């Protein structure tokens, strides 16, 4: 539950900053993956951390 708690904490803070909607594109879906919501939130927390640190990848091939 640790990752879920961390994500929910982030979410609550962002809601205070005006967040109204969050969506995820899972591509081909998670249904067949043997994973848990903790795995999902772990990845989401990683993304949050990267975003907050501003560690972006320059993509000249995406236009």
């Amino acid at each position: 539950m640790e990752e879920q708690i961390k994500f929910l904490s982030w979410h609550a803070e962002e809601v205070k900053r005006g967040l109204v909607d969050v969506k995820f594109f899972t591509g081909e879906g998670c249904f067949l993956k043997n994973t848990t919501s903790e795995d999902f939130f772990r990845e989401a927390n990683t993304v949050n951390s990267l975003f907050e640190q501003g560690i972006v990848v320059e993509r000249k091939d995406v236009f």
Partner: protein
Amino acid sequence: MRIVDVFVLSRDIISEYKKIHAGTLMHPIDVLGDKGVVSIIGERTKLKIETACLRWSGYMFRAQLRRYGDRANIIYSHELNPCWSRFAICKEAFHLLSGDTKNFSSDPVALVNGLLNQMPQYKVDDDIGEIAAEHLAITGAVQLLLPHEFTPLLDRLESSGKTHYEIATIFKVPEKIISYRLTPDTKAIFKQLEEIKIPN
């Protein structure tokens, strides 16, 4: 929202796109930049839309949309190739265009459980707006990147023997999206939509 509503929305964006591009509609459609569909969607929704590619595995999810009152962030994984990146960005941007407040995800736990289990945690009297919103956004992205104006060219390329992969590289979209666009059912839908007279 119905499929025809998605068509109307995407057609409006493509109409604006054509105006910005001196009345022409060349492939591939520009997604980013001042003249891209995301910029047009930003103006239409009065949202400042920023995209960011981050280095993560993309195992659980490939892209994320965060919508705030006056802005939105579309974040996508560096693991996505250019075609999938373009598609993911368009799909998330279409959520901004089509989403109304009842489709907003305010409960992350229910959202994630729904994604993992394909069974949203709805109450019995909830409507299924959230799942429909995902399908509509995907449909919208397809219509933005492969609008009906491209149908004759798509058909010619397919008839000439080009593989779906080869066609995908021409339009800079995922091969899977070309395969979907060229199924008989999707062709029939696009044909139906083209024949609907929608007042301007």
